[in-house]
């Protein structure tokens, strides 16, 4: 199906959902589905896959800042030129989300990146060791959060040659 058909079908499918959602169309080829409850993610992703509304192209993490106290995770599904994004908000203190690898095996590297860069605990992720960061990276330091201070690594610099 092409871009317009995909967007139309996506709106229809998402509109029929019983969970709390908000549909926004930020650009002509995009549909953002804000899921109010992060626990609905797996079910929503399953529905999108079932309706063949694209493949999981990327998982973007955004740190909304310490004042907002939230992180946002965007799950982008692409079909032709359409980008259908599931957006969930997670609390900054203890962000937990269920893994999608049961439904979408290809989600693994994206979820590992999300977990090591933003500190999101992805439940059910097999082998959650570091993918991009080095082994001796200090725990609880998440580089892509807004409050990341590179000075934290200065103590580590002498250790690793």
């Amino acid at each position, binding site marked *: 199906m092409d871009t317009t058909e995909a967007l139309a079908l996506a709106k229809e499918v998402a509109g029929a959902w019983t969970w709390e959602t908000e549909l926004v169309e930020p650009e002509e080829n995009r549909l953002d589905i804000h899921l109010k409850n992060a626990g609905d993610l797996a079910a929503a992703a399953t529905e999108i896959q079932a309706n063949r509304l694209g*493949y999981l*192209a*990327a998982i*973007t993490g955004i740190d909304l800042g310490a004042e907002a106290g939230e992180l946002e995770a965007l799950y*982008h599904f692409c079909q032709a030129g359409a980008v259908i994004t599931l957006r969930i908000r997670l609390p900054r203190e203890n962000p937990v989300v269920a893994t999608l690898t049961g439904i979408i*095996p*290809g989600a693994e590297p994206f979820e590992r990146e999300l977990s090591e860069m933003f500190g999101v605990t992805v439940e059910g992720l097999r082998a959650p060791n570091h993918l*991009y960061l080095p082994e001796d990276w200090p725990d609880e330091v998440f580089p892509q959060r807004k409050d990341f201070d590179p000075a934290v690594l200065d103590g580590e610099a002498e250790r690793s040659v």
Partner: protein
Amino acid sequence: MTTNTTSERFTVPIGPQHPALKEPGAFRFNVDGEIVTSATVRLGYAHRGIEKLAENQNWVQNIYLFERTCGICSHTHATTYCLGVEKLAGVEVSPRVSAIRTLVAELERIHSHLLWLGVSAHEAGFDTLFMFGWRDRETVMDLLEMISGNRVNYSVNILGGVKVDVTPEIVEQILAGVDLLEERTKHYLDVVSTDAGFLQRTRGVGVMTREQAEALGAVGPTARASGVARDLRVDAPYLSYSDFPVQMILDDRGDLEARFVVRLRELFESYRLLRELVTHMPEGELATRMPRRIKAGETVSRLEAPRGDVFYFIQSNGSDKPARVHVRTPTVCNMTSVVKLALGHQLADVPLILAGIDPCFSCNDR
């Protein structure tokens, strides 16, 4: 280094330093004799924190940063970024700019596929094909040098336009170069499809079915060789691809031979497109003024790099620096398939299976 001397299996490390790899990445294959029984991958050796760096530099400086995500698809990264930022700012570029960007993108695709042909032939032990392929790659590098001044990492993009123009002399050289390359590519396609020794190493090796490719989220020629019809230039034409369309090249065998054939046949499409493009270059100015501060908003920008689709998510908060740029490169999607496909194959097939997805670890690690 721990050694594992269990009699049934031991671990053969490929990487982070290994002659098979052009860039660092650590693979560990547990082998039983010559058969691979399990595999793991560790990336991040070329991780430079580009996404985070981008938040501290202004929009113009970031072009030069994103160009350097990768050496062989640098133009694609820069173009994707520029297209995204131009969309956010609401700036329309002239048709000539799009045409020149398309021209360089297709030349980059030709460069990348010829380089890949040589490297994969080298992994298979077929050095003659490697040397011949790279000799012909010099032709496309000369063309790119003529246009941009660089053989690799062309850097033709600026926000709102391009830095270079295509003169009639360049057009003439491009046409001559494309003629030569097309003749050579026909020969390589012939070799790859009919050479008995080469086929012994590639036919039926590393088969990925369509369902597997879709489940693992493979993109680019790797996916198209398994019959998955994904090509952004066809599905969602950007730049000049709506005026100068390309055909999608698919193959349903899913083995290494299919990956070779798909990439070589894609080259023919690029040659055809280049000929049409340079002989019908639209007119227009080379650059449009862009504001220093980009309007607040978010955009998704996607382009088809030689390895698959590149995905940029750019968020602006109205200042002169981006708030968030997320880059998803095609090799990330294809890398999981290597680990799965290598199982049950011989150790000798592993470098070829890895080369078959056209890995770009710099892109991968950012």
